């Protein structure tokens, strides 16, 4: 069962930008790419916990603001030579509104 929670409008996120959502399961970073794709991943860099929602967004990736790791928004994996991953969450955009599936978040948090 999905549990879609509305978190705001697509237009609240700048193009090539990100915002964060505070949840009981931790901070989730929500991204909007140049191609207007949206992604949600854990807002904690696998390196040393940097807030990924503050990084520079390019393609479907973000560069961590603390030490420049580059993470894929699709898979949550670190790209290039670095190794590590963050969780990804299910997000959808309908009629300009964004919905986060908290059930997917909870399931991920549980495992």
């Amino acid at each position, binding site marked *: 069962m999905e549990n879609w929670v509305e978190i705001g409008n*697509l*237009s609240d996120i700048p193009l090539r930008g990100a915002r964060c959502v505070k949840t009981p399961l931790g901070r989730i970073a929500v991204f909007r790419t140049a191609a207007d794709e949206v992604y949600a991943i854990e807002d904690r860099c696998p390196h040393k916990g940097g807030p990924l929602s503050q990084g520079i967004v*390019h393609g479907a990736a973000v560069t961590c603001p603390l030490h420049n790791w580059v993470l894929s928004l699709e898979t949550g994996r670190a790209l290039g030579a670095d190794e590590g991953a963050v969780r990804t969450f299910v997000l959808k955009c309908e009629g*300009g509104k964004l919905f986060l599936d*908290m059930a997917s978040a909870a399931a991920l948090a549980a495992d």
Partner: protein
Amino acid sequence: MTGKQKLIVIGNGMAGCRAVEELLARTPGLYDIEIYGAEPEVNYNRIMLSPVLAGETSFDEIVINGYDWYEENGITLRSGEEVVGIDRAARMIATGKGRRVSYDRLLIATGSLPFILPVPGATLDGVIAFRDIADVRRMIETSKSGGRAVVIGGGLLGLEAANGLRTLGMDVTVIHLVDTLMERQLDEAAGFLLRRELESRGIEVITGASTEEILGTERVEAVRLKDGRVIATDLVVMAAGIRPNVALARDAGLACNRGIVVDDHMRTSDPSILAVGECVEHAGQVYGLVAPIWEMCRAVGDTLAERQGEGYRGSVVSTKLKVTGVNVFSAGDFATGDDREDIVFRDAARGVYKRLIVAGDRLIGAVLYGDTEDGSWYFNLLREGGSIADARETLIFGPAFAGGAAADPNAAVAALPDTSEICGCNGVCKGTIVSAIADKNLTTLDGVRAHTKASASCGSCTGLVERLLVLTLGDGYNPAAVTPVCGCTDLGHDEVRRLIKAKELKSIQAVMQELEWKTSCGCAKCRPALNYYLVCDWPDEYADDYQSRFVNERVHANIQKDGTYSVVPRMWGGMTSASELRAIADVVDKFGIPAVKVTGGQRIDMLGIRKEDLPAVWADLGQAGFVSGHAYAKGLRTVKTCVGSDWCRFGTQDSTGFGIRLEKFMWGSWTPAKVKLAVSGCPRNCAEATCKDVGVICVDSGYEIHFAGAAGLDIKGTEKLGLVHTEDEALEHIVALVQMYREQARYLERIYKWAKRVGYDEIRRQIMDDAERRRSLFARFVFSQKFAQVDPWSERVSGKDKHEFRPLAEIGVSQAAE
């Protein structure tokens, strides 16, 4: 009665009539056919309404089936008669003219309805959609008295409407909700090119804008946007999207989601009722283009003819914009992702941008701008879904180079005929370059440039010229060791800076297009660099792109290891006062700031502030007169001073006063890397001026200016620039030096590295000896400060970039647990 079955078709549009054509092609005699159409017209080609609006063709020429077709095929046409109800139990339809007719089979082809934004004023006279010929006639009528038009929606329809209205002589403004035009079909780069083209045709484009209200008493008079802007207008065209027209079907109890649900044979939930066209939903998809409709019509033709066909299996769609002179093509999926790879080709001279998206060894998307000739070829590859592994290297060159053997990227260039033009700027073709290389024994790019001029102007064909060097010389060619800005380009920083000026490139997209960037939107290395170059070169024209700045410069504070921020206000020249210190103390208490430290730059750092608190902290600091210290910026940081002649027994000049003057003159300016200054009152040098980017040692006879020092990663004493006699002169020389650095250095290059590269003597010559040059550098700095000297903190206290400081949402425990 004929004894035939009765087929009623609702909708005399593209799908309804095509379905009947398909049926007639299979079995002509099966039904008595009656077609109802709400529009008082015969069957016409809706997609050609755009050329009709633009005056390129007429209604008569876009008729698909005229009255004779209905007659010849024994079809009863009831045009201008709307069907208002379906009685499934009685198998009858009812029309707006009170007619009730029974059917054996019913085909619903009611198309879509334009989506009218539910804003106040949407029903005013002069607000129209762009869906049928009546709309077009109304637009043409309105345009006769000239005036202004606003088109809401920058998608395919909206832009075709805008172009048509512009051709009819109206002043047109397009309002689009998101930042990229046609964002569903185009990526940002192509959207940018399209926007530039439309703007050059005199169409105003406002993106990222949402319509709040349409103003007017009887007729429309203006449109008001959410941000408060009001745009006067005589006509509003709503092109904000379409919705499948399902009301009739839904009222009749047929299964509907977004569209009328049909199976592969176009059957609805009632087996005697079929549906086709934009009003249907097949496998969860609804379509807004004709190609899928033609495929659906083949399936419905089989079903009506009672033949077992393959059925409809869904469609991959491609789009072309029908604006004369603008070639845009897009197909498939063009989102980025790391299971995908982009192949990008840009030809600035011809205004061409092509991007192919490959996943594994399959082509999954294509965006073409400028040259769309190969669109259908790519579309075929995409639909067939076969492996493109063999052709991958040359895929971007299109079918001409897609031959089996051409796996080597040089092969495509080798295959070009001698007459093909390589350098568009100077009109140099391949043969000329190849023979120059051979005849004159050229071995370098510079050699080719000197002898043929190829790639000597805009430089965008550099890659091709290098390929020709490789082809002609083989291993004998050793490409010059320019380090590219990043993986997104082959050009180095200097080349990029030169071209930004030479070609007057004024946006990041323009740079990426003209200089043929290999990625669609750059990376975290090149974007901040380009943003700086543009800020520096076009201070009054360039709109700073915050998304291309590192977080510190975006939120005007320094990010800390735990994600909190530190805040360092300016203390001009290191001077402070009891009231300033008191204000800082109060802020520290009020916000529970965990650490306060005196920095190495003679000021106070408050560390560990939560991001959400930043605007409130700044508001309080602002009250006390503080502005941002830019401790986070590639910009002017601190100007350290010593107490100087005011107090010190050795002081020769007012070093504190001059330091403050410098800081007040130069704060806010963006620079390639950080810039730190210091002014010492005598050669004892208590302000450590001889290890700064620029330092001043005051002496009895005046001011000794030093530059190019460092005391961080590298330690380096300064070089002497020269001695000047007055404070004013010292200011002019220092500012000119910094401006020279701003204009020439590579992003992230400190002054000491830049100076070593260009030569200390050269800098001395330009700043000390060439008064004219010095003054013009000074003037350019002063001009750019007009736009840069805005305190970023007070801007944000007044609400700028609010989104940066708040979470998008907070989800409570109960919501999360539901």
